[in-house]
């Protein structure tokens, strides 16, 4: 820890030195042009006729030319490096939210800059924030928003974001105006409009820190989505209110017609933004329909169209945040089906990267600006602002929750309400809005100072304490302090069950609209917006699954790599004394289980601004179920041993091979009443001739082991020949040759499982064939070989099959 912080400090200092040196050089250049500037652009023109020979400048410096991008680059680098720095040491980020750390570093840098009389960075002085820094953050949030959860809780989210923001703004504004009337404080010159404006600025909550905490403690999803959605839409509403109040505050008197127009404007702004968002979302989806031959450009469309939506909404002074969020929401569904897997990953990574950088920069500048800008400190005003922020937020949540609880199936408990109120941290937007007040604005410095004070208070004090508080309050969530492994396992199983049953029941309250939308979607939108209406993609997904399977086999076959280090002892002790378990062992088992079990309802959570949602899990689950289904298909008689059940994780020892071979022989001789204890888990077509399978088997058993999946092979050779082709299509066509008609006659979107349920005769047979090929291979190659092959396979697939992105690294715990 010590060495680390020293290292970090050195790094920071180094960059500061570079920065300051650079900037001061720039200023020196600007003020005294006589200093060495041999490399002026006009130089080459004069050199030729000039009698006084000037040599070609071998080394020259032209700092002003690169100054702005150079400084921006350095700022971004510095902020990002700082972020790396405190992520190396994990424990800090667990207890202290990231934004706190960023602000702290910003404060330090600002302090250094202040001490050498450097001006604050020129980056955040204009509309840069709204035009460049904000869009990535909002786009990211919109794109990764858990759509289904959001629409389920749509009403509540809008209620809290619209009414809650209005409540806070007006409440804080009016009560601050009341405070201003007290003579002793000396702030009578602030009028009502200005107070309202300030109230609007200060009521924007930015729950990034809170969301991170919520996520880690597995908070219930209603609370999560409400806080998440609130943060998004309240941005939009605040910005709308801000421009409204800013306009009003610059007028001398306000008529009632102004109020009316303001309200109208509010709706126009909101709905106008949504309309533009929808428009550009559909256009983007439609565009990606035709990008099959220019895959490398796909991400551009996503970014540019959403940015266009943002800019156009800004052009008409509509709610640009609404526009970009709606755009992202709309296009996501269609675009992700149209674009290739690679583009999809690129899009996601870029979004995360940009939003991460933007946010880091904003917090960083917040720290810097706190030190370097001019302040006007007024104890009363700032103190009361803080108090009102807390009080109005608390009251607001309490009152609004009482009202909305009548309409909710699952009401907010008092604890929920408390966490919601306490999660009202102020953040980047609040700061930027305050900072962007025009310079002519009276008392601008006071407002900025108050905003910074509130932000720092909420981010530091509330941000740090919210986790222990949630722990202490025991807000509704999955309980971690379980006593026995039994409880752990069974509760998890029950949670999965409930999740499944809930899915089965569908979404009651929104079901009608969802159904309507789905109909429209299937009938029109999908046909227009999506390239090839789906029959292929299920095959592609199967292909991907098979690919992934190779990687999984590899992973399991040398499990030592993936196993958690703490468990090696557990493994070793197991054969010697399986009967007694030490408490530590139990504990480590529980650790292992709680870390490695699939999350309940994968669909719901995982929005963090800094990491991508994990889709691999879903694939993994599908794969495993795929394998159980195949096992039950094979129930017809090939297997009955526990070794077969272990297909997934073939132990790397050769000794297991022998009994398996023997058993195989016995099964060949017709002993096929497989009392496999797995029930048939699919809708088994009864007409399927089982005999056919068995009849084929002996013949194939005699054949030398062939390569694993025919399809995989085909694709590989193909891909070698033409390395730049679209692998998905290729894989798809290869597969569809194999299993013709698998996707026919299915009008609606094929969910992956559907294949297993609705195979027609031929598809099923082909499937069996593939499986057998695969199993054959496993049975007859010695384990060592097998492992090596699997490794080759995986490395192959890593290099030649882009469908499987980074097969190995994804699985590391």
């Amino acid at each position: 820890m010590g060495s680390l912080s020293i290292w970090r400090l050195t790094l920071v200092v180094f960059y500061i030195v570079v920065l300051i040196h650079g900037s001061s050089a720039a200023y020196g250049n600007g003020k005294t042009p006589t200093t060495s500037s041999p490399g002026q652009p006009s130089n080459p023109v004069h050199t030729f006729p000039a009698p006084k020979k000037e040599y070609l400048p071998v080394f020259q410096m032209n700092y002003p030319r690169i100054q702005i991008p150079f400084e921006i680059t350095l700022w971004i680098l510095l902020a990002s490096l700082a972020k790396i720095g405190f992520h190396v040491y994990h424990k800090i980020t667990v207890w202290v939210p990231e934004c706190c750390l960023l602000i702290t570093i910003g404060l330090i840098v600002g302090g250094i800059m202040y001490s050498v009389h450097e001006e604050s960075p020129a980056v955040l002085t204009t509309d840069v924030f709204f035009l460049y820094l904000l869009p990535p953050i909002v786009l990211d949030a919109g794109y990764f928003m858990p759509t289904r959860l959001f629409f389920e809780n749509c009403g509540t989210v809008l209620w809290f974001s619209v009414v809650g923001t209005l409540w806070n703004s007006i409440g804080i504004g009016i009560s601050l105006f009341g405070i201003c009337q007290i003579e002793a404080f000396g702030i009578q010159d602030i009028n009502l409009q200005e107070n309202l404006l300030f109230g609007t600025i200060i009521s924007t909550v930015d729950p990034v820190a809170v969301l991170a905490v919520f996520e880690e403690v597995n908070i219930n999803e209603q609370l999560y989505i409400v806080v998440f959605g609130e943060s998004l839409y309240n941005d939009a509403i605040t910005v709308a209110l801000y421009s409204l109040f800013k306009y009003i505050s610059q007028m001398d008197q306000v008529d009632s017609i102004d109020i009316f127009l303001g309200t109208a404007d509010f709706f126009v702004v909101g709905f106008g933004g949504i309309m533009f968002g929808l428009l550009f979302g559909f256009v983007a989806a439609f565009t990606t329909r035709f990008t099959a031959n220019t895959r490398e450009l796909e991400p551009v469309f996503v970014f540019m169209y959403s940015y266009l939506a943002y800019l156009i909404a800004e052009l008409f002074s509509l709610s640009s945040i609404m526009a970009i969020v709606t755009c992202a929401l709309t296009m996501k569904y269609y675009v992700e089906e149209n674009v290739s897997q690679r583009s999809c990953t690129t899009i996601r990574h870029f979004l995360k990267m940009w939003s991460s950088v933007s946010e880091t920069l904003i917090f960083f500048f917040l720290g810097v600006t706190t030190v370097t800008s001019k302040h006007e400190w007024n104890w009363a005003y700032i103190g009361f602002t803080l108090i009102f922020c807390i009080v109005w937020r608390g009251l607001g949540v309490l009152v609004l929750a009482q009202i909305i609880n009548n309409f909710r199936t699952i009401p907010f408990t008092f604890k929920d309400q408390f966490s919601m109120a306490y999660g009202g941290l102020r953040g980047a937007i609040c700061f930027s809005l305050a900072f962007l007040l025009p310079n002519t604005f009276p008392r601008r410095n006071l407002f900025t100072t108050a905003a910074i004070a509130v932000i720092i208070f909420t981010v530091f004090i509330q941000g740090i304490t919210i986790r222990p508080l949630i722990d202490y309050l025991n807000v509704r969530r999955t309980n971690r302090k379980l006593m026995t492994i039994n409880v752990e396992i069974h509760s998890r199983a029950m949670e999965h069950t409930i999740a499944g049953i809930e899915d089965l029941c569908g979404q009651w309250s929104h079901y009608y609209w969802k159904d309507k939308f789905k109909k429209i979607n299937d009938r029109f939108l999908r046909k227009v917006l999506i390239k090839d209406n789906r029959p292929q993609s299920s095959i592609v997904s199967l292909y991907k699954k098979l690919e992934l399977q190779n990687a999984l086999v590899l992973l399991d076959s040398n499990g030592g790599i993936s196993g958690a280090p703490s468990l090696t002892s557990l493994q070793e002790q197991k054969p010697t004394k399986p009967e007694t378990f030490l408490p530590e062992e139990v504990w480590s088992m529980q650790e292992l289980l709680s870390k490695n079990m699939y999350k309940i309802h994968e669909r719901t959570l995982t929005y963090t601004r800094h990491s991508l949602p994990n889709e691999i899990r879903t694939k993994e689950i599908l794969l495993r179920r795929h394998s159980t289904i195949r096992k039950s298909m094979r129930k017809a008689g090939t297997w009955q041993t526990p070794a077969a059940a272990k297909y997934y994780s073939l132990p790397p020892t050769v000794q297991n091979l022998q009994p398996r071979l023997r058993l195989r022989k016995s099964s060949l001789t017709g002993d096929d009443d497989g009392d496999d204890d797995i029930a048939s888990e699919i809708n088994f077509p009864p007409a399927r001739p089982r005999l056919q399978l068995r009849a084929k088997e002996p013949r194939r058993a005699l054949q030398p082991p062939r390569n694993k999946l025919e399809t995989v092979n085909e694709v590989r050779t193909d891909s070698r020949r033409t390395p730049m082709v679209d692998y998905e299509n290729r894989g798809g066509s290869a597969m569809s040759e194999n299993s013709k008609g698998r996707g026919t006659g299915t009008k609606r979107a094929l969910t992956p499982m559907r294949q297993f349920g609705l195979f027609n005769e031929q598809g099923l047979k082909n499937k069996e064939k593939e499986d057998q090929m695969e199993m054959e291979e496993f049975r007859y190659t010695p384990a060592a070989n097998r492992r090596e092959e699997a490794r080759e396979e995986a490395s192959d697939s890593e290099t030649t099959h882009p469908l499987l992105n980074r097969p190995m690294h994804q699985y590391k715990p």
Partner: protein
Amino acid sequence: METDQCTFYYKSKTVNSALSRTEWIQLKEVLSFHDWKLVTLALPKSCHLSSHQVTVSSSHICRLYDRFHALDKDDKGSLNRSDFQNISELAVNPLGDRIINAFFPDGMDLIDFNSFVRILARFRPVDQNPKKEPNAPEPINSRVNKLKFAFQLYDQDKDGKISKSELLQVLRMMVGVQVTEEQLESITDRTIQEADLDGDDAISFEEFKKSLDKVDIEHKMSIRFLR
């Protein structure tokens, strides 16, 4: 008893499963109807009710019927496994197959609306203030029934015990690939050892119930929609 048959109409469509009157009453109790509208229940004249048509229903039944109908793609009046498997969220649920199986007991291939509702009724939250009736039969959403449902997810061979291999299977479905087979086995051993009271190396239902004594099953195994 043909005279006892009632037909259940919903949005002027006939629900295929004609329920007998007693079944209706049972369903009604199971789901605790409160609003009696929307749906007309056409009763035969022999039912001795005051009017020919009695409006009867609950929002639950309507919703469940809506859902049932939406899942039933071919309008065949019953659901089969593939209808269930088409639910994409269920498809990625690690225990999805087990859950689907629970709806098809004893090798049945189809499930009608009545049974569908009955199975789902187990997940209704327990009433906060149950009426004390000494002779009342155990409600279908009781703690024991909820536990039974969970138990049958494990107990695939239906011998009333969770054997080691059964537990291992479920565990393997729920755990990610990071956990090796050996680890899983030792965890299974431990689990059985922990819960097994009579020393038969398996978990019986009683033992299962006992091991979950402190867990709030009523809350955990309830769906909010069926409130």
